[in-house]
Structure formats: structure tokens, C-alpha cells
């Protein structure tokens, strides 16, 4: 992604998913969707643009919706490590 993060989609998990929640709120969907469902699996809607160009607005909707309604197949991560020391 533009910010340096990485999106990982475990597509094996998507094989049994019926919700396709990841595309439900893909924010750009009305203009220029990042994800689409192709043969029942999530795929990039375009191949001529890379998501790291800033095409993906990093709204995190795909990951959160997949967690909530799908098969928890999407993970978005950044390289930095933040110390876990606050009150939990």
C-alpha cells in the first residue's frame, strides 16, 4: 500500500465464503473499486494500476468487514513495532 503496509488475502479461506463482505464497503467502489469478486474470489479490480500508487485509500473496510461477516481471510499490517506497555 502507499503507506508501506501490506494486505494479505488467504484466498483458500474465501472458497467457502458466501458473504463477499470485503467488497461491500470498498470505499472507492462507486468510482474506482480496488477489489472485485472474480470466480467467487476477491481479486484486484484493475491490473493496470498498483494499489501502492495510492489507488487504495486504506479505509480498512475490507479487513474489518471480512472479520465481522466473512472468514477472517484478510490481514493488513505495517512494519513498525509499537511497544505494548499501556494499561490493557
Amino acid at each position, binding site marked *: 500500500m502507499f503507506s508501506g503496509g501490506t494486505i494479505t488475502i488467504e484466498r483458500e479461506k474465501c472458497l467457502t465464503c458466501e458473504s463477499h463482505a470485503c467488497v461491500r464497503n470498498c470505499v472507492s467502489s462507486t468510482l474506482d473499486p480496488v477489489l472485485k469478486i472474480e470466480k467467487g474470489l476477491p481479486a484486484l479490480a484493475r491490473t493496470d494500476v498498483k494499489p501502492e500508487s495510492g489507488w487504495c485509500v*486504506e*479505509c480498512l473496510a475490507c479487513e*474489518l468487514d471480512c472479520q465481522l461477516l466473512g472468514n477472517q481471510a484478510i490481514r493488513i499490517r505495517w512494519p513498525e513495532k509499537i511497544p505494548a506497555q*499501556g494499561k490493557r
Partner: protein
Amino acid sequence: MVYLNEHQIKKIIFRKGIRVPRGAVLREKGRKQGFAPLKKLPWSEAVVLKAQVPVSSRLKKGLVLFSRNLKPELSQKCQLLFKRIKQLGLGGELLLEEKIAHHKEHYLALVSDPVTKNPLFLYSSHGGVDIEKKGSGGALDLEKLTIDPWVGLQAKALGSLFSRAGVRDGGKILELTRISLMTYEIYRTWQCHFVELNPLVETEKGFYVLDAKMEIDEDATSRLNPGMKRMLSAGKPKNGHGLEEKAGEIDRHDYRGTVHFLQMDTKSVRSAYGKKIRAFVGFNAVGTGVGLTAMDELVRNGFFPRNFCDTSGNPTASKIYRVTKIILSQDEIGGYFFITCLSSQQLDHTARGIIKAFKEIYWKTHGVPTIPTLFLFRGAWDEEAHRLFQEHGILKGSQTVLLGRESTEQGAAKKFAELFKNG
């Protein structure tokens, strides 16, 4: 703003041909045998030990000590200073330098004037500590000269300024002019906001700079050469776990919205407010204005922000997520407070960033915070933001509340205080 340590500034000044006291930098590591005296100086000569920390009025705060150039005395005082630096929550070095006998102190500075948008040269013949009280009638006594950056600082103008300030000796005027021109060169080449030589002292050998400050414009550091950049990173004060630096990285290569994160000095707050403090809270605001108002209201209720954070300008949800994790990773926090202004930014993005962070941090409770937490969403897409919080179950706990457009900063702070009562 980027700061350099005093010993680094003195190195820069010395390279420009301005006299500074002879000295050495002392580090704590590997010094179990104590600290050796300064070889360049005679035995038992008077020396000064200065903590290299970004703190003002070091002398008054006991961060500058005087000693003799003898190992036992020096070691004892070095250890005391290192202890005081640690008490401030900082890491740092000491500068050991010769004590310069002098008969007069001057003040000389260059500052970027926000009114004229030009460099401003400042001079006073009464330098040293509390210069604002040293002029005639106990008031600040400064001679000012606005500099046209296209023309630069002119020796002729400086000559008249020093005469106006009461310097009569031609030799001294010449020397002060030379020092001023060199300081202006440092100010320009190092992209400074502020350079200060105080005190600039008069001795029998000439002028010496005993202390100096430099603030560099962080947005202009790309213009510095690699050597200068290395010096900057070496001088960076180490602050806690480097959370400010980590937060700074979020914006570094991503122009979409802003994340401004700054940690508060809890020790100073404790010493100033003592028992009035009910808790330190992790704080995030969309909009600096609403942030300041909300912090005032929180303090009134006994809640002191552990940090200031502004996430405005329509940042991506990923930015919000990363900074929320940083805010909640701070030590000493007993609550979390989030507030927006009547914002035009897409608040559903903001909500998603927060939700993802909470779900990861409070994974045991599926995202439900275990500390008193208040969210106030007002503005564009706020209804969507409210729906997302409900949908993801973040509000299930009794210590969490979500407010909307009907709420004020004052009301939110009171509601937050109620959460602590209930808890």
C-alpha cells in the same frame, strides 16, 4: 523543530572561528572507574559540568555543576548529573569544559520573525541568565535589526546597532560584528528558526561563547548536507520509547491527512498539580482547536492528557489505526478520550482506524476497552461511524461511551468523569 546539543553547536561555532571553552563530552556507559579530569587543563583548575538535555534554565534546575579538575570530585558530580538526567526521563551526555573568567556578558541571537517573515537580529549588552530583567529599569533591553534575506546581514548596520547599544570600543565593535556575521552564516546554512549565543562573554583574550542554542526548521532539513544530517540524528533527544519518532514516521511519506502526536511531560504535571490529578488519559482529537478546548475541560475535571494528538485533514483509516496504537501503548494512562470538531472529514474512515486498533489491543474482550473510554463523533459520515462502533461491538462495556452531534466539549469531559465514578 530539530534541536542540537550544546556541545554540537559549540563545534559548529568553533569551526566558524568563534572562541568556545575547551572541553570534552562524557558518556555514562563504560565509566565504572570514574571520570578522568580534562587533560587539556591544569590539575585542579575550575571546570563546569553541563547536562546535554533540551531543558531551559539548566543552572537553576541543578543541571549545571561546578567542580575542580580532580578525579574524585569530578566523578561524584558526574554521577549526580547523570542521575538527575535520568530523573527527567531523558538519556544524555555531559559536557565538561573549562570555566572561563569574564567581566561582562552579552546576548546575541537570530530569530525568524513571524511578523515580518524575515530574519531578525537581536543584541543586548546585558546577557546571561534572566536577560529580560537585566536591562535599564529591570526590563528587556534589546537592539533589533530586521534583515532582508536577499541582501543579508550588513557590517555597517551592525556597527551602528552596537554603538546604539552602548559599545564604545572600536575593537569590540569589530569583533562583535565578525561574530554576528558568522552566526548569521550558521543561521542560514543550518536552516535555523533560531540561533542564540548567551552568554557571549568578554574576557582578556576576547569574546567566548559559553552557551548556545539552535533550533532547526524540520521542514528544511532536506536542504542539509549528509554530514549535517548525521549530526542532527546524533543530537536527537531520546524520549521514552521513541513514540514521537514512530508517530512522525506515519506522515513522513504519506501526504493524505495529518497525524501530529506529542507526549506530555508527566513529571512536570505531577509536580505542578499533585493530588489534583485523577488520571492521565490517552488523547486524540480531529482538529487542533477542539483538541485544546477539550484538554482544558479534561484538566478542569482532573484528567490530564498523556499526549496531544491531532488527526485531521481527512487522514486514511490506516493512519488513525497506527497512531491509536501508539496512543494506547503509552504508560500511565488510565483512560482514552477521542473527540472531533464538526468535521468535514470522512469520519467512517476515522472510526474504522480506531476500531481496528481497539480490536487488536483489547483482543481478549473482542475490542471492548478495559479502561474508561469516550468517543465523540460529530460531522460528515458520523452516523456511519456510530453504526460501525455498534456493529463491531466496541461499546458493549460499561466503561465505554459514544457521543454525537448533540454533545459539547464540556459535556463530554463531564461524561468522561462519570465513567471513572462508575468504574
